[in-house]
């Protein structure tokens, strides 16, 4: 007969083992992708799959020869940082005014903004494509920055709004009595207090635009194509390409994966529009 303490210990061990098992299964595809990126193409294709092999960096060198990885990576960086920056410039003042000068319309304006996210992108694919063609924006980074700013703006406004709502109004009033203009209030008082919230908004916007794959696949061809499109170009097989696919995928995902790991706690509020804390 087990004592109460022993049952509890057994329970912890069992649940812990189960937890680890589930986590390893969920993570396995990523682990396997990274592992395969260090194999030769023959090893990558071999059946049964090999767990032990001599690692090689050839794939990472070769994918650079096939198509310049750095061009695509640079496009991803420019487009995600550019759209996030412009998005913040638009979203912070809007959220400020909604959080601190709340009116009857604020709630409905917020919900309306969110409802623009309900609009499926295919619904406007044709006109956007034709407009982009007319304005020479097809396959340009500027075009993608415009789109990403617009699709992320509602989320950014909503998220910053929920952070600003938690700041006591007294603090701002004190600054106001000292004769601060709204701009000074934002820059000197609000931004320092809400650093954490703004940082996670920035992170979320970066992740969403880095991984966006509807507009990037439809509106870019080569010169402005980001990493999502580079990876998609591996969808038509050319002989043995598993290891190279893995290498390019690993490179494309690594930065955002690390970002995500570091910021998972802050991201929850953003991802749930502040509804889960």
């Amino acid at each position, binding site marked *: 007969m087990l004592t109460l303490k022993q049952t509890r210990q057994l329970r*912890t061990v069992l*649940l*812990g083992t189960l*937890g680890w098992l589930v*986590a390893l299964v*969920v993570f*396995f*595809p990523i682990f*396997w*992708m990274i592992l*395969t990126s260090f194999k030769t193409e023959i090893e990558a294709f071999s*059946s*049964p*799959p090999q767990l032990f092999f001599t690692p090689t960096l050839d794939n990472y060198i070769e994918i650079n020869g096939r198509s310049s990885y750095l061009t695509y990576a640079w496009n991803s960086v420019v487009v995600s940082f550019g759209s996030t920056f412009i998005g913040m410039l*638009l*979203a912070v003042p*809007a959220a400020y*005014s909604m959080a*601190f*000068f*709340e009116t009857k*319309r604020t709630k409905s304006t917020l919900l*309306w*903004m969110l*409802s623009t996210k309900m*609009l*499926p992108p*295919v*619904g406007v*694919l*044709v*006109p956007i494509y034709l407009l982009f063609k007319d304005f020479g924006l097809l396959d340009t980074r500027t075009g993608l920055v415009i789109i990403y700013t*617009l699709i992320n703006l509602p989320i950014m*406004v909503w998220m910053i709004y929920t952070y600003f709502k938690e700041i006591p*109004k007294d603090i701002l*009033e004190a600054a*106001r009595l000292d004769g601060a203009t*709204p701009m000074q209030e934002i820059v000197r008082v609000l931004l320092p207090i809400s650093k954490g919230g703004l940082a996670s908004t920035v992170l979320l916007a970066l*992740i969403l635009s880095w991984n966006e*794959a*509807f507009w990037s*696949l*439809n509106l870019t061809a080569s010169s402005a194509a980001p*990493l*999502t499109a580079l*990876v*998609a170009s*591996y*969808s038509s097989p050319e002989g043995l*390409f598993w290891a190279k*696919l893995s290498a390019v*995928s690993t490179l494309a*995902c690594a930065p955002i*994966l690390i*970002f995500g790991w570091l910021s*998972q*706690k802050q991201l929850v509020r953003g*991802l749930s*529009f502040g509804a889960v*804390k």
Partner: protein
Amino acid sequence: MSISNLQVDKATGAEGSALSVKSQNRQKSRISLAMVSPSVLVLLVWMIVPLAMTIYFSLIRYNLLYPGDEPFVGLENYYYFLTDEGFAAGAFNTLYLVLAVLVISVVFGVLIAVLVDNEFWGRGIVRVLLISPFFIMPTVSALVWKNLLLHPVSGVFAAVWRFFGAQPIDWFAQYPMGAIIMIVSWQWVPFAVLLLMTAMQSLDQEQKDAARLDGAGPLAIFWHITLPHLMRPIAVVIMIETIFLLSIFAEIFTTTGGGPGYATTNLAFLIYTQALLQFDVGMASAGGLIAVIIANIAAFILIRLIGKNLTDKP
């Protein structure tokens, strides 16, 4: 959307004389209006201009391959789109994909969140591993699953099947939609886990202890305490995942190309093939509007069902 008469009287402080407060308020209201309007304006343009164009295109015969001939045809495009065999398949596949992934992510999300809520060694790492797939870009998840895991010859699944003496499955030939659902679920279960496991942390521990003292078993506690507590975050998960799942595109684009036949064509992909592969702008626009209408119906139902959960802060 008119926000011209913002009233800010309540928001500003009551300090100073009545007169200066009033003029201050007027200035404040102007400034705050100036701060909201850029965001509202760009979103308004983003919503109205393309939508108006889609409506217009949907009413004319417009194919990029035959320029110059664009007669008004009324609802002809809608008729052809709705009676096309692709539409029935696309509408069915869209709903099937959304519902299947929603059910899978809520069920597994809750189970995993409850599991990792227990204290055990290395829980922090387990959580990080569990949410990782959410950060992987769709094109990568799709191609890694298709080529490294589900491949009928060299894939890991095939090796596991052979290990147990079974005939490996050619997923994309035999169960194409099942394969897509698997990939998309792998991306979205972690999202549910992330939200639900955060919500678990705010569960009242004393309530659970009290129930346990009263002799409630783990199942009863789960059913009467944990699950009700998770209803709100589950509503959030359903809401947000629906938005994204209705327009799944990259996973289909990079794996099956909508096939075999229409087996994995959802509405997003169907409209894409009509617009950018067949250059039939008129019909693609009609399809686009129908997709918008379907999304609005789904959003309306969702907001009626769970929207209250989202806006009323507890």
